[in-house]
C-alpha cells in the first residue's frame, strides 16, 4: 500500500538569511548574496573571485565541544539547518525521532576541506601530524547525514545522497520514496555545502566560473545573453517529510505534498549536459504522479548560468512543459550552493507557492537567443497561484532530478 508524503517542516542557513521571512524580503528587494572574495586574491591563478557565503549565524549553547567534535563546517551547517526544520515541524524531542521510524537522506559534494589537507599532508610527508579520531568523520562525504543522526539520536535508515549538485534534490526524492513505500514514517531530507576554494577552483579550471569580479551583484546571470559562468554559494537546507496520517494525527502544519520524483542520468559526458535525458527526467516525475505537463504552474530551474547548461535546460523544459511555462532560477540570488541547492530550491519554491508570489531570475536583462522560449520571470517576479510546482536539478556525471510538489491549504486535503 502506497503512503502519501507531506512536508511538515522546512529550514536552512543561506546567504540571504535563515528563515523565510528574511529571505523573502531579500528576494523581493532583488538583493543578491554574491560578493567579492578579497581573501582569494592570495591565489593569483584563480580567475573568479566571487562567491555567495552563508550569512553569519549563531549557534545555541548545546553545540558544545562534545556535540560538535566530529563536525567540520559542512556537517555543522547540515545539523543546524536540520534543527531549524525539526523545530519548524514541531518534532524536536519528539519520540518518533529516536524510535527507528525516522530516517535521514542527506548529502553534499564533499566532506570538509581542512581534514582533506591533513590527509594529503600525511600521504605526501609520511607523518600523521594532525590526524585525529575525527579527521575521517569530518572528511567523509556523508559527514552531514551521520552527524545529524548522532546529534538527534536518529536510528532509522541513512541514505547518503551524495551526488554533487543533485545531492539535496536526490535526498528529498529518495526520502519521499522511502515513506511512500512504507519504510519510514519521517525522513529528514536535504543537502549542504561549506564554502571553500575547492569547488570554485574546479569550475575555474573548466572555465565555467564568472569572472565579473568587480561587479558581484551582476552575476550570475542565468539564461542571459551576457552570462559568463557560475558563482559558488554556501548553505544548507532541510525538509522534514512525513507520512500523511502520522502528520494529521499529531496535528502538524502541512506545507505541501510531495507527489512526484524522477531521476536518471545522461550516460554520455562527465560534465556536458544532455537535453534529451533532462527532458526525460521531467517526464518521469510527471509519470510518477500521472499529471499532464500543463498542470505544472511554475518551474524552479537549476539555472547555473553556464554557457551550455542553461541552453540544454531551457530546451528540455520547453519541450516537456511548453513555451508558456513560468520559470526562474534562484541561483541568481544564492549562487550555486552545490550539495544544498536541490533542497534549498525546493524549500523556497514551496514557500513561494504558499505565498502566491514567485521570484524573478536576477540579472536576466537580455535572454540568450540560443535558450528556448519559456515564460522567464524577471523584474519584480510575479504574483499568481500554482497548484503544482516542479523543481529541477542537473549534476556533474549527468545525474538529473525532477521533483513535483502539490499545494496544501489548511490541514484537510483538497
Amino acid at each position, binding site marked *: 500500500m502506497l503512503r502519501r508524503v507531506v512536508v511538515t517542516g522546512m529550514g536552512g542557513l543561506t546567504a540571504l538569511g535563515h528563515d523565510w521571512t528574511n529571505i523573502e524580503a531579500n528576494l523581493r528587494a532583488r538583493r543578491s548574496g554574491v560578493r567579492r572574495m578579497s581573501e582569494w586574491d592570495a591565489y593569483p*591563478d584563480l580567475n573568479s573571485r566571487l562567491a555567495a557565503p552563508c550569512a553569519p549565524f549563531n549557534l545555541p549553547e548545546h553545540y558544545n565541544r562534545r556535540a560538535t567534535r566530529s563536525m567540520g563546517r559542512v556537517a555543522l551547517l547540515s545539523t543546524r539547518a536540520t534543527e531549524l526544520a525539526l523545530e519548524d515541524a514541531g518534532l524536536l524531542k519528539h519520540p518518533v525521532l529516536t524510535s527507528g521510524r525516522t530516517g535521514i537522506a542527506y548529502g553534499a559534494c564533499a566532506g570538509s576541506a581542512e581534514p582533506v589537507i591533513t590527509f594529503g599532508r600525511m600521504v605526501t610527508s609520511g607523518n600523521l601530524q594532525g590526524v585525529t579520531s575525527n579527521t575521517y568523520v569530518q572528511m567523509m562525504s556523508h559527514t552531514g547525514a551521520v552527524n545529524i543522526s548522532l546529534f538527534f539520536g536518529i536510528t532509522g535508515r541513512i541514505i547518503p545522497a551524495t551526488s554533487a549538485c543533485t545531492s539535496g534534490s536526490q535526498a528529498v526524492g529518495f526520502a519521499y520514496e522511502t515513506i511512500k513505500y512504507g519504510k519510514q514514517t519521517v525522513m529528514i531530507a536535504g543537502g549542504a555545502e561549506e564554502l571553500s576554494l575547492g569547488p570554485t577552483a574546479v569550475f575555474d*579550471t*573548466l*572555465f565555467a566560473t564568472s*569572472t565579473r569580479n568587480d561587479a558581484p551583484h551582476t552575476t550570475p546571470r542565468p539564461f542571459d545573453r551576457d552570462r*559568463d*559562468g557560475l558563482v559558488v554559494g554556501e548553505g544548507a537546507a532541510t525538509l522534514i517529510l512525513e507520512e500523511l496520517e502520522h502528520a494529521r494525527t499529531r496535528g502538524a502544519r502541512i506545507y505541501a505534498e510531495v507527489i512526484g520524483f524522477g531521476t536518471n542520468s545522461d550516460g554520455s*559526458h562527465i*560534465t*556536458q549536459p544532455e537535453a534529451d535525458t533532462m527532458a526525460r527526467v521531467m517526464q518521469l516525475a510527471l509519470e510518477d504522479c500521472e499529471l499532464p505537463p500543463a498542470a505544472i504552474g511554475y518551474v524552479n530551474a537549476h539555472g547555473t548560468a553556464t554557457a551550455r547548461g542553461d541552453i540544454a535546460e531551457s530546451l528540455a523544459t520547453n519541450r516537456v512543459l511548453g513555451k508558456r511555462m513560468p520559470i526562474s532560477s534562484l541561483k541568481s540570488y544564492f549562487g550555486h550552493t552545490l550539495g544544498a541547492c536541490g533542497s534549498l530550491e525546493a524549500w523556497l519554491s514551496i514557500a513561494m507557492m504558499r505565498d502566491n508570489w514567485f521570484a524573478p531570475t536576477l540579472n536576466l536583462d537580455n535572454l540568450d537567443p540560443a535558450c528556448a522560449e519559456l515564460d522567464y520571470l524577471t523584474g519584480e517576479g510575479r504574483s499568481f497561484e500554482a497548484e503544482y510546482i516542479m523543481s529541477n536539478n542537473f549534476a556533474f556525471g549527468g545525474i538529473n532530478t525532477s521533483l513535483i510538489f502539490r499545494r496544501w491549504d489548511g490541514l484537510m486535503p483538497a
Partner: protein
Amino acid sequence: MPTVDVFQTLKTTLVEQFELDPAKITPEARLQEDLDLDSIDAVDMIIRLQEITGRKVSPEDFREVRTVGDVQRVIEKLLAARAAPA
C-alpha cells in the same frame, strides 16, 4: 621560441596526451570535429600547455580556440607576452 618549434611542441604534446595520429595534426585540424577532442580534453590540453609555457590562458582565449592553429596562436601570444620587457 621560433614558430616551427611551437607547432612541433604542440603536436608532440597532443600525440602523447591524447594518443592521436601525428598525421592528423595540421594547423587547420579542428579539435572537436577532426581530432575528436571534447570539452574536457580541451581543458586538460590547456592545463598541460600552461605547464609548458609557464603562463596562464585566459577564459577569453580559451573560448576562441577551435583548431590546432588557434591553439598555436594562443601559445605564441603567451610566450611573446612573457618575453616582452616589463
